[in-house]
């Protein structure tokens, strides 16, 4: 049984191809202005790692922000359920998930079967999300890959009053002009983001084990700041960014199995 999960996020598009519960291949691409094109792009990238073509995939589940616009998806499922299922596949002991995406942030409690028991999402404002960090990296003129480790070198604690992208940008710029080191500015921003995430998590229950999914989970400085704030170590998946796509592929396998069973019964 070959299935795929496609997660079209606001910033990144991810595809996971699975066969009988095993991951065959995956890809991560940037989401362009057209979700349909991004879906084909990430799917083709993932197919390159295999001997398969799109027609060999029996069932595709789409998820994420652009999920309704995937031309080859059989069904679409909300990213909350997909992240829970995907995180559970990577790390079965996890009960609390913080998904830090490109434009929103979600806190999810999950049971031992990977089902959501509680969720809360903040998508009203993109302050403190992946896009926000991209903008800040640009302001500081530091490559995106380096903003994580760089913050770990911070020596001074600079409190930021806001994580509103507009205000934080000017606050960061004026600090830069005063000669504040980039690492201290980043550390200050991460601390403000961690506070906001902690507030979100406090509404659900913070049970161990705890994991972070989404692209920001690859930012070592951000993960460390969150761990310090929560007083908890985060378990991280092999590639936290694809948790949603893995969950979608697992849903695809379930749906296909149910359909096949139904077909046999009738």
């Amino acid at each position, binding site marked *: 049984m070959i299935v795929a999960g496609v997660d079209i996020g606001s910033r990144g598009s991810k595809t996971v191809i699975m066969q009988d519960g095993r991951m065959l291949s995956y890809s991560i691409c940037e989401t362009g202005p057209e979700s349909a094109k991004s879906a084909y792009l990430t799917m083709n990238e993932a197919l390159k790692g295999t001997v398969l073509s799109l027609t060999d995939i029996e069932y595709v589940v789409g998820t994420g922000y652009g999920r309704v616009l995937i031309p080859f998806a059989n069904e679409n499922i909300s990213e909350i359920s997909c992240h829970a299922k995907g995180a559970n596949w990577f790390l079965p002991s996890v009960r609390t998930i913080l998904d830090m995406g490109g434009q929103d942030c979600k806190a999810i409690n999950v049971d031992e079967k990977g089902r*959501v*028991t*509680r*969720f809360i*999402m*903040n*998508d009203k404002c993109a302050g403190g999300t992946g896009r926000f960090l991209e903008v800040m990296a640009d302001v500081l003129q530091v490559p995106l890959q380096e903003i994580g480790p760089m913050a770990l070198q911070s020596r001074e604690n600079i409190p930021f009053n806001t994580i509103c992208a507009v205000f934080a940008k000017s606050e960061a710029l004026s600090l830069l002009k005063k000669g504040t080191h980039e690492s201290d500015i980043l550390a200050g921003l991460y601390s403000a983001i961690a506070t906001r995430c902690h*507030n979100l998590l406090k*509404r*659900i229950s913070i049970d161990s084990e705890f994991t972070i999914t989404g692209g920001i989970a690859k930012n070592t400085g951000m993960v460390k700041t969150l761990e310090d704030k929560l007083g908890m170590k985060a378990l991280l998946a092999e590639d936290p960014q694809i948790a949603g796509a893995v969950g979608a592929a697992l849903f695809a396998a379930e749906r296909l199995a149910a359909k096949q069973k139904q077909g046999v019964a009738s």
Partner: protein
Amino acid sequence: MQAYYGYADGSGDYFIVIDTDKCNSCGECVSACPSHLFATATDDYGKLVALVPEGLTKKIGYLCPGLERCSKQVKSPCQSVCREQAIRLTW
């Protein structure tokens, strides 16, 4: 599942919390809400439940007048009609 629909911003917390384990999808909240904030639909696990549709979650603070102004009683109409006590407001 405890589903939190809404957001928190500088002015406060605006979440409508629906307990989908308690919800029996009777649809009373759909007709009771003067701002039409509820709908029923099948969730990702195949259960028919009440929810706040996607486009409305970011406007809850404006659309839902909240406990004080929506009703003179202790409970808002959505909470009063829900026999399973599956709905809660956070503000």
